[in-house]
């Protein structure tokens, strides 16, 4: 008997006492908090993101470029990676700033390691947890782009922010690779104290656009 057959047969024997059919429990219950209103949801999101020691900027659509530039200057970034689908106006103000803008032309991990920062859009934000989810569409780029550079500037539109975790899960397409980000890289492995900054980007800047 193949391992597959044997394991499945063991499991069938082990569950021989079960008389219900798969799916008998019905719909998966949606247990979350409803949004008290768009502005409260947005405020809670901003507050919870900041709680992870990410920097949060709120601005109008025409101010995104300045917000991105300011974040890069704060972190002293010199080379910025921009995925192809990113709104061009977000990097427009960088033209004469001395910050070099590069595109992903199949960069290797080593090449990515030489890049200071990356700017991306996002898929969905979760207010109750201060989480941003990327689905790595063209305006976010493949997963390595938001991982290897030490700074991630993440732009999210107000209408992308949902209130609670189940709302976000319902919006995501599992066929895509997904990355949930809640603050900069951190560890609690030394005496259970949270320390920001291990392998992922040590600086996370979130720009909320409304």
């Amino acid at each position: 008997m193949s391992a597959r057959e044997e394991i499945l047969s063991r499991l069938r024997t082990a569950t021989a006492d079960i008389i219900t059919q798969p799916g008998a429990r019905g719909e998966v219950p949606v247990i979350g908090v409803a949004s008290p209103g768009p502005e409260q949801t947005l405020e809670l999101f901003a507050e919870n993101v900041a709680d992870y020691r990410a920097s949060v900027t709120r601005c109008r659509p025409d101010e995104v470029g300045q917000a991105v530039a300011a974040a890069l200057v704060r972190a002293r970034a010199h080379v910025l990676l921009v995925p192809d689908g990113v709104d061009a106006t977000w990097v427009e103000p960088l033209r004469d700033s001395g910050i070099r803008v590069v595109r992903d032309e199949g960069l290797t991990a080593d090449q990515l390691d030489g890049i200071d920062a990356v700017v991306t859009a996002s898929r969905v934000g979760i207010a109750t947890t201060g989480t941003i989810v990327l689905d790595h569409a063209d305006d976010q780029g493949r997963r390595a782009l938001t991982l290897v550079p030490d700074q991630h500037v993440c732009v999210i539109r107000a209408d992308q922010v949902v209130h609670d975790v189940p709302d976000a899960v319902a919006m995501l397409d599992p066929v895509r690779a997904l990355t949930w980000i809640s603050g900069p890289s951190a560890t609690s492995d030394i005496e259970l104290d949270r320390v920001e900054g291990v392998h992922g980007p040590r600086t996370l800047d979130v720009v909320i656009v409304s």
Partner: protein
Amino acid sequence: MTLQTTSHTFLGMPPFPEAARAALANTQQRRNLAHATATIRGKRALVVGEVERWEELRVAGADAKDEALHHLPHYLEQLEENLTARGATVHWARDAEEANRIVVDLVRATGSDEVVKVKSMATQEIELNEALEAAGISAWETDLAELIVQLGHDRPSHILVPAIHRNRAEIREIFLREMGTVGRAAPEDLTSEPARLAEAARLHLREKFLRARVAVSGANFAIADTGTLVVVESEGNGRMCLTLPQTLISVVGVEKVLPTFADLGTMMQLLPRSSTGERMNPYTSMWTGVHEGDGPQDVHVVLLDNGRSAVLEDELGRQALRCIRCSACLNVCPVYERTGGHAYGSVYPGPIGAVLNPQLRGTSSPIDKSLPYASSLCGACFEACPVRIDIPALLVDLRTKVVDEASGRSPEAASMRATAWMFGDHRRLEAAQRASTLAGRLLGGRSLRSIPGLGAWTQARDVPNPPRETFRQWWARTHGDDEEAGS
């Protein structure tokens, strides 16, 4: 019923009371543990208290796991089908040896002589690192705590924070001494400041991430209706392993299956708050087979039985397979806090380990016979468990099995009965402990070993002077508040 073979590492382990005695004598470890578990208990209580519908979430979490476990063959086949459709290759492993052979062969086929690893309980359980090592393949642990354990030639002592028994000064010493022997050395001026230690790990591991061609991971969840695997982590080492190498091999216990993607709406609330005491962990990666042009293009999933089907057979005991390895039960356990993880003789320590190890491995070895007694049945673990595993009930059930097996004849069985009798009723235990405290005041310097009726546990503690405060009293005094806030 096919049980797990107890690995050589733990085969000769003394029974829990003996192992605990050694641990209790280690004051540094006890201090580290007390500090760490108190910190995490406080954090967990805060973020769990924030969630109004926590109890509903716990019920939904238990239901989701039960749905999967009750129909495990169905959901595993569905998972396999979806994974295969998305370009992944699925392998099945009856036991540790078979799983290790599969992984070693896969790594060999890539021609690589090293792998980077994401912290995974399943690969610890099958002792994959040793198998890789024996095949001439270096396995680099990349989780900070795992790195500390690996560099310290040590064993993990906690599910979530395997180096919880080490404090910052010890970690600094290990880094300075060992990093240079396996890669980039730690900076000479390294201090014991946590941020500096984390920075040293970043530098040490980055060269390994950048050149790695093969990664090995586990998975927190495997979603049957989509074929999605989920890894929950903090540091970004998981993302590095899951993204940069060409080949990704994930070893996944069959009990990790969740019926649907929507169940993550529940689990992604329960797990982070219960484990690190955060609203959400810094990073969660979800991938579904191969993503074209993004991440590993050669994706393998090894579905592992290794004793799980035997656990599933027991109607009461099968609920232990709901465990999502959050470690909340460890952090609230007064026994764990005092003895640490090593005394449990397994990669699964604490209350869940006391249940799961004898379930997975049977109760023939001294350590597995004694584990069901490594508890005062105070019930804190059940209260904390996000998937409502009734650990105390399972422990009592296992005790009955151990006693039945011993048929009540051997002296060992008799001592077990005494312990069972004492632990079986909390008033008796309290009375015994009060008596022992009182006796301590009266006895002066004499040992308590000869006091009748106190059983194995008292002997294990081997204290010439019983404490003025027993851990039960201490528990009531120090944990009374956060218990309420946490549940």
